[in-house]
């Protein structure tokens, strides 16, 4: 990809990110209830104190000026104080983020591990039993309400079979000094295999709940891409050269058939962010998604606002990465 094209595509991000910030800011403006009154709810504040605080927080200035301040602060990671925690919003979010990242990565990995082989086999054996089962499975995958499926998994594996924990991220007995803040990796790095299995057993069910709808989509994408590739001339040529079927499939065909899958996976990772809120709530997973849902109920708006902005920016960037990946992996496409 040419640097100029990359620059052009990067510049296109600016209006979108600006627009996203405007929407998040307007959402906050339109929120009923005065942030100062929410903050001082349990204290006996005189009207004078309320006025002073409002002035200190800049709430008495015109909207456009406040938007400028908001943008400047957002760019430097300053999202104000979390009403509820009485600490900077940025710190509270940063604390919860690793749990969400670990869950998202696990789900992404799981989805790819399910979807790639299944899609390839379905494509090779088109219209076979495997292909049909994969099709039916995909339909179920996109139709499953995640919050319900998570509860069903809990009932099955945690309550009845008692082989996996109901909720949480790791037992208290395990305490591993943080390196990456991803508990599975940290326990391996610290040489604690017992804690690794413990963290993994907590991770399995939420990751599976999150992964299935994504795997359903990716299987279809992988299948279509593989069918397309297998029809192309260079595969016919490889066959004519007398290369073994296995070598053709896994070395020549898959390499190209992975391009759409990887691209869609990058986009879908963005939608995992939304799914996280539901799945983290079901499994008591101490991540950002659950924090946002909890914050809504205590009207902790600065945190909700910062998190929504964070999610949106991540989502836009992931789509950008998907675009770039697609061109890098597939030189025939021009931006």
């Amino acid at each position: 990809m040419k640097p100029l094209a990359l620059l052009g595509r990067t510049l296109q991000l600016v209006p979108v990110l600006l627009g996203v910030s405007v929407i998040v800011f307007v959402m906050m403006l339109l929120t009923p209830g005065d942030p100062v009154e929410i903050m001082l709810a349990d204290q006996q504040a005189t009207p004078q104190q309320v006025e002073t605080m409002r002035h200190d927080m800049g709430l008495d200035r015109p909207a456009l000026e406040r938007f400028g301040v908001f943008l400047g602060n957002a760019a430097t990671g300053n999202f104000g104080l979390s009403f509820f925690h009485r600490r900077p919003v940025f710190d509270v979010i940063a604390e919860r983020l690793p749990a969400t990242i670990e869950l998202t990565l696990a789900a992404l990995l799981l989805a790819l591990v399910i979807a790639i082989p299944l899609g390839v086999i379905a494509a090779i054996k088109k219209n076979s039993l495997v292909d049909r089962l994969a099709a039916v499975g995909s339909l179920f995958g996109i139709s499953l309400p995640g919050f319900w499926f998570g509860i069903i998994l809990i009932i099955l594996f945690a309550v009845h079979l008692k082989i996996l924990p109901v909720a949480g991220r790791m037992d208290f007995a395990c305490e591993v000094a943080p390196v990456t803040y991803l508990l599975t990796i940290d326990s391996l790095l610290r040489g604690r295999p017992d804690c690794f299995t413990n963290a993994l057993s907590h991770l399995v069910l939420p990751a599976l709940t999150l992964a299935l709808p994504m795997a359903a989509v990716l299987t279809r994408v992988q299948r279509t891409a593989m069918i397309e590739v297998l029809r192309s001339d260079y595969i016919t040529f490889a066959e004519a050269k007398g290369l073994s079927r296995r070598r053709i499939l896994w070395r020549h065909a898959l390499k190209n058939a992975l391009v759409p899958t990887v691209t869609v996976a990058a986009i879908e990772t963005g939608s995992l962010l939304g799914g996280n809120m539901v799945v983290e709530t079901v499994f008591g997973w101490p991540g950002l998604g659950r924090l946002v849902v909890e914050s809504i109920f205590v009207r902790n708006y600065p945190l909700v606002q910062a998190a929504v902005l964070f999610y949106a920016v991540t989502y836009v960037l992931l789509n950008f990465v998907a675009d770039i990946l697609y061109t890098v992996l597939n030189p025939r496409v021009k931006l």
Partner: protein
Amino acid sequence: MTAVPNDAAIVRERIESPTGQSLRRFLADRFSAAAMGIVLLFVLLAVFAPFIAPHDPYETDLFRRLQPPAWMEGGEWSFVLGCDGLGRDILSRIIYGARVSITIGLAVVMIATVIGIVLGLAAGYLRGWVDIVISRIVDILLGFPYLIFAIALMAMMGPGLKNIILALVLKEWVVPARVVRGEVLAAREMEYVEAARAVGAPRRYIMFREILPNILSPVIVVSTIRMAHVIILEASLSFLGIGVQPPTASWGSMVADGRAFVLDAWWVSTFPGLAILALVLSINVASQGLRDAFDPKFSD
């Protein structure tokens, strides 16, 4: 005298409208037709809920608290699917819950489709600054993950049926708008549009009377697929407690109610979730059939 069919009969026999052909193809696909049957069944349940539901969905009875389904010990056939934590009949609540899911699904998709058609037609046919403004707004809205956008709006507006519809429509219209815009861009170069322009037909006439009928079927197919999506979103919001509020029976909040009883009463969460799965799955299967029937180039 030999029976010679008159001209009109011949015409009627040979020419079937494209819609008719598509419908015939759709009904020939038994699987999709059956799925459509299930969707219609849910619609009937929703409409006639008061006549079908065996009990009052709001009537609590502490003696029936967490009563198991009929086939389990302690169950009764008059409360087939058992009772919830307040002793309310789960089957009756599921039947009433269909009203919420279907009302919101239909309302959101229909309103969003109308908005999407108008804005998509405007962007695709008028081009220029209209297109730029609409397309930028679409880009920005696409920058939000759907559920997060809806959750943020619900957090601001507060729960309730009207607010859910509003929050989902504000994001959902983007989908039909993009489809319509794309179709219009292709259609505006076609001869029939040029012909209409040549005879001096007004812009609004060309947009709504010439182009719209010709691009409607992909839009309708996309809208049916989206309905499945919207129903899951509403259920997710209600599950999180920021959607439909108690005591109104909605499938999402019923699943949430059951979370407290996963240890000893699995049926409270399980059955409402199965209802969501059955409806959404049927809509997905039916819409795939519709897509194949109306747009054969998609099927492989």
